[in-house]
């Protein structure tokens, strides 16, 4: 079931609109009601891609590559792109901001898709309309690639003030923007004491990111002779993936600086008194990177395409066909990137890029009236564990489809021995990914 008009207004009223629409005597809800189409009807098939991150950018470009006649519209709320991959290296001062930021105009003009810098505020699947703060756009196919949202409710049970306080004072920095800049400032200004990092439970964006971040922060502390410790509170029993590689780095490079605490499921977060209560004990912190549990980005909820568990409760992740990425409830909608659920894929940029190419092929062939057999994506993930010299470890996972059991089976390969070569390969990985999406 798609969103009703009332729901849409409710949503718009929450405030996504208020910043960008001039107030001329209408309420936000009224403004949406008066929304007009911002594009003329398409002559051919129009695909609207919501979210210009790793997945959405790839879908948009590769759709145009598959068939330049498809009218591709990419809607993204950020004016420019900031990469989470390599942001930990940037946090540690190893690369400049230039390396990880990119402009949206380059790929739009080069590949001929339309880039609309707007916020998606509503989706009406029955009308095939996407509402933005500038008006609505009609689609033949819709791709939702909004990434993740934070689930602070899991910690604060709906206390919005507490969530806001935590977000501003101890930003998670798993969604790019100010949070990353704030985290960098905190790390470089840190003077002494315990700096706590929480690893989210369940599925979350980039499983190794927190461990890499811990290593990079520890590197900064070591370099700046800071009397500080980095404490990683992990609900899991052990570090994964690349456990031995991270462990070796913590023990050999950051002994006494990094403390890894397994089985630390969070019972209570008190950001005001700077205490976290966990199943592995209570931890007081001087500063922190408090990362709450993750869920699929808001747009998937808005489109009512979240999967339900056996008890009918939302799983938090999209309900899509594992092979075609098509929404189970709506053949015209494709879900891609970190939002997807029910598959053994890690939520990574590489994965989003790999899936994006598959989705572009599937949509282009649907438009051409053909059906193709989808291929499976793959993932390569480098993690920097040392800053001087720069050294990294790597995991690569390819997937097989077990036809009998109808299951996707991961085949991981790991190098846990850190090396300077792998650090260089980390940047080569990123450079060529950025080139693939932007150049």
């Amino acid at each position, binding site marked *: 079931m798609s969103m009703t008009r009332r729901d849409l207004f409710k949503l718009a009223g929450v405030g996504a609109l208020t910043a960008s629409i001039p107030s001329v005597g209408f309420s936000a809800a009224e403004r949406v009601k008066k929304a007009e189409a911002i594009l003329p009807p398409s002559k051919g098939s129009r695909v609207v891609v919501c979210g210009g991150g790793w997945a959405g950018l790839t879908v948009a470009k590769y759709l145009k590559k598959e068939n330049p006649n498809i009218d591709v519209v990419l809607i993204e709320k950020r004016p420019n792109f900031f990469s989470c991959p390599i942001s930990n290296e940037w946090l540690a001062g190893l690369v400049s901001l230039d390396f990880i930021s990119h402009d949206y105009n380059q790929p739009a003009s080069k590949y001929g898709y339309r880039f609309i810098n707007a916020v998606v505020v509503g989706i009406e699947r029955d009308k095939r309309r996407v509402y933005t703060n500038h008006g609505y756009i009609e689609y033949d196919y819709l791709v939702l690639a909004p990434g993740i949202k934070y689930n602070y409710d899991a910690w604060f049970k709906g206390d919005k003030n507490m969530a806001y306080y935590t977000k501003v004072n101890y930003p998670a920095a798993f969604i790019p923007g100010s949070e990353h800049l704030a985290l960098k400032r905190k790390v470089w200004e840190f003077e002494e004491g315990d700096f706590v990092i929480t690893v989210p439970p369940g599925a979350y964006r980039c499983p190794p990111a927190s461990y890499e971040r811990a290593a990079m922060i520890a590197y900064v502390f070591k370099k700046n002779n800071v009397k500080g410790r980095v404490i990683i509170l992990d609900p899991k029993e052990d570090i994964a993936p690349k456990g031995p590689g991270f462990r070796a780095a913590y023990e050999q490079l950051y002994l006494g600086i990094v403390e890894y605490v397994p089985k630390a499921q969070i019972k209570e977060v008190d950001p005001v008194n700077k205490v976290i209560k966990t199943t592995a004990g209570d931890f007081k912190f001087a500063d922190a990177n408090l990362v709450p549990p993750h869920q699929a980005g808001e747009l998937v909820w808005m489109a009512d395409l979240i999967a339900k568990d056996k008890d009918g409760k939302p799983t938090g992740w999209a309900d899509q066909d594992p092979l075609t990425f098509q929404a189970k409830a709506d053949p015209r909608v494709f879900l891609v990137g970190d939002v997807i659920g029910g598959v053994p894929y890690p939520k990574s940029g590489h994965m989003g890029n790999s899936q994006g190419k598959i989705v572009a092929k599937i949509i282009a062939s649907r438009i051409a009236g053909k059906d193709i057999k989808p291929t499976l994506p793959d993932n390569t993930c480098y993690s920097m564990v040392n800053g001087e010299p720069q050294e990294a470890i790597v995991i*690569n996972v390819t997937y097989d489809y077990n036809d009998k059991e109808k299951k996707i089976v991961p085949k991981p*390969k790991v190098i846990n021995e850190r090396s300077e*070569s*792998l650090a*260089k390969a980390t940047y*080569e*990985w990123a450079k*060529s*990914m950025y080139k693939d999406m932007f150049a």
Partner: protein
Amino acid sequence: MDRRDFIKTCGAIAVASFLDTKFFSEALASQEGFLKLYSKAILLKEDGTPLTEKDIAPHREYIFFYPFASTPCYLINLGDEVKGAQLKLNDGQTYLWKGGVGSKKSIVAYSAICSHQWSYPTKDYAFINYYPPDKPSETTKKAGVIQCCAHLTVFDPKAGGKVIEGPAEVPLASILLEEEGGKLYAVGVLGKDQFDAFFENYKTDLRKEYGSTAKAKELVDKCVVMEVGKYVKEIIRC
């Protein structure tokens, strides 16, 4: 094949056809769009004399630039005969690869621009490399392969550069070699070359290294072959 390629091809055929007319006419007839013949370029040693088969030690990785001044290729003597193979592109089209050249038919050459996202050997680093039988890759445990460390695609040099695993969707383009009177020549490129993407993506780097894009795109008529380690500062293995 566009008009420019076609003209280039015709010009090159006139030169190349006396080598093996039958092969080229057959190849062209069946491989239109896959085979591009460029200027016939002789392979030379660093001292400027012609490279011969005995100069190519088995399982070492040599680099040369063809068909453009800036497009790197790898030359490898795989030791044993390498038979021809049929290669498949992601759109289902197929083309034939002729196999190795030389007395043992063991010498092969490939474009060193990764067909995934165009990682290529520069003077600083080579992330895409040949892993000889005695030096398997640490990640994939595969040996006798060309592997790219950017995103770990593995290519098979014994089968026309076909993808064994990893994200690349098309084979490495192969460089068509011919032997004539003991001398080796590069005459064309077979498969889906990545030259357009390469020139587009590395504009700034190429301009820095070659002075101008035009210089980087100059066609060559001779290629100096050297061991990769001599050209790049660091071979990155993974």
